[in-house]
């Protein structure tokens, strides 16, 4: 999965506050490191040269180190100032994150599953809610309020370019505020070990102009249309009479199970299987046949379906744009 994935290139205010704190921490730590190195070099220069023939100096200290009190006081003062600066920076960043604006925020519910992300766009008008998976579109310049939940074990939601990490704890709903100021595609990743395929539990956040976002969300609200030609009709029937509909949902059909990702607009997404597999007909067919070849341990079972049935099924799923 390509895409920008960089804490040091913040694309929104939340990530910017965290990046500022990171640079402050780096500057202070670098200063301390340099000070220690300089002290070490001074000690080296002051020490008398010795070689293998020099007898070890076991004599008691002749006179006390000069200006001990002054040197120790300066070191303690520097440490206190450095630590206070870090403390102040941390408090300032936390306050800024806690005071991010929420007016007119876009509400999104994200549920982590082993090993994919369920995404519900909330709306005060229930008919305007819609569900998707592993791809989050947000409008540029508008605050986004994420409600994070877990369906099984602890996961962690992390889009380095947009915000800090937030754990998804089973039985709790936690919120994360973020905002994108620059359009672009930002990669996200589960950041808490959650089982075999933790590393392949990625997603993408696509920040786009408010117009593009409105067009995308209107398209997502559309239910799937009934297929028209015989090939895709066969795939549609296979989907509804086989194992697929036991776990997946397609709005506009009787399939409404929630154990796997919502497939109403699966062909419009860039990736399959939470960023593990590119979304094209060949990979989709290979994924349905044996998900374990891409993600060993994935919850989706392998399906030994005949070639013609697989082709019909893939042809139908490709119409779900």
């Amino acid at each position, binding site marked *: 999965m390509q895409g920008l994935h960089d804490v040091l290139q913040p694309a929104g205010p939340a990530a910017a506050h965290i990046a500022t704190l990171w640079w402050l921490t780096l500057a202070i730590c670098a200063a301390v490191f340099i000070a220690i190195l300089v002290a070490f070099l001074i000690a080296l220069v002051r020490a008398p040269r010795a070689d293998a023939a020099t007898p070890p100096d076991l004599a008691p200290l002749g006179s006390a180190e000069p200006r001990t009190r002054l040197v120790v006081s300066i070191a303690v003062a520097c440490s206190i100032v450095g630590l206070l600066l870090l403390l102040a920076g941390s408090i300032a960043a936390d306050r800024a994150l806690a005071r991010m604006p929420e007016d007119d925020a876009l509400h999104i519910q994200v549920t982590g599953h082993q090993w994919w992300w369920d995404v519900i766009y909330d709306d005060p008008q229930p008919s305007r809610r819609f569900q998707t998976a592993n791809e989050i579109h947000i409008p540029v310049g508008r605050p986004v309020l994420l409600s994070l939940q877990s369906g099984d074990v602890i996961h962690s939601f992390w889009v380095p370019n947009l915000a800090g990490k937030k754990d998804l704890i089973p039985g709790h709903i936690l919120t994360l505020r973020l905002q994108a100021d620059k359009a672009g595609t930002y990669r996200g990743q589960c950041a808490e070990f959650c089982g075999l395929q933790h590393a392949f539990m990625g997603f993408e956040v696509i920040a786009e102009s408010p117009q593009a976002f409105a067009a995308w969300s209107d398209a997502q609200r559309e239910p799937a249309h009934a297929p028209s030609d015989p090939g895709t009709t066969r795939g549609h029937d296979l989907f509804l*009479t*086989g*194992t697929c509909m036991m776990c997946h949902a397609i709005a506009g059909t009787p399939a409404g199970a929630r154990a796997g990702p919502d497939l109403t607009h699966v062909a419009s997404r860039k990736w399959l299987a939470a960023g593990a597999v590119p979304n094209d007909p060949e990979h989709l067919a290979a994924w349905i046949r044996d998900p*374990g070849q891409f993600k060993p341990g994935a*919850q989706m*079972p392998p399906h*030994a379906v005949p070639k013609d049935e697989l082709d019909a099924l893939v042809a139908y799923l490709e119409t779900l744009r």
Partner: protein
Amino acid sequence: MRALLVLIGLAVALGGCDREERKLAKLPSAAPSPATGERRGDLQPGQKGSGLEQTTSSRSFDGKNAFELAQGKRLFRWYNCSGCHSMGGGGMGPALMDNRWIYGHEPDDIYRTIMEGRPNGMPSFRGRIPDAQVWQIVGYIRSISGLAPKAAAPGRNDGLAVTRPENERERATPRNAPGSG
């Protein structure tokens, strides 16, 4: 000397430990063999049809494997077994946590019940659930009434816990209904 003996004893004892094998789902290599058994009920979830997958008669039941039982528990919820049987206490369907088995408590009996359906409401899940997953569910169903080893039965719920965990249940001596298979 005594410490050395203890150490040797410990090493020998630990050598007997075995890590449980986690069998990941694999594509069946052989062509699906014809399904066995006859369908008892007419009900099937969703629309009727042949289904994507033929039932293979590969018996992959392992009631001692904790991973298999935990997967069975997950699938029990996913496939909405709990819709009728609740968390084992029963509702529209019979309870699974008592000792009374209308159609038998052996793994093969439970497998047939799921695959072929039973009269008066149990749908047939043939073609709906892959074979290996059915065996996982069979293992979990046995653990609900304590028929699975305590060391392997699930100890926690993903959701709100409404009953004692399966690994704390007392073994209920199975009592089959007369004249049933």
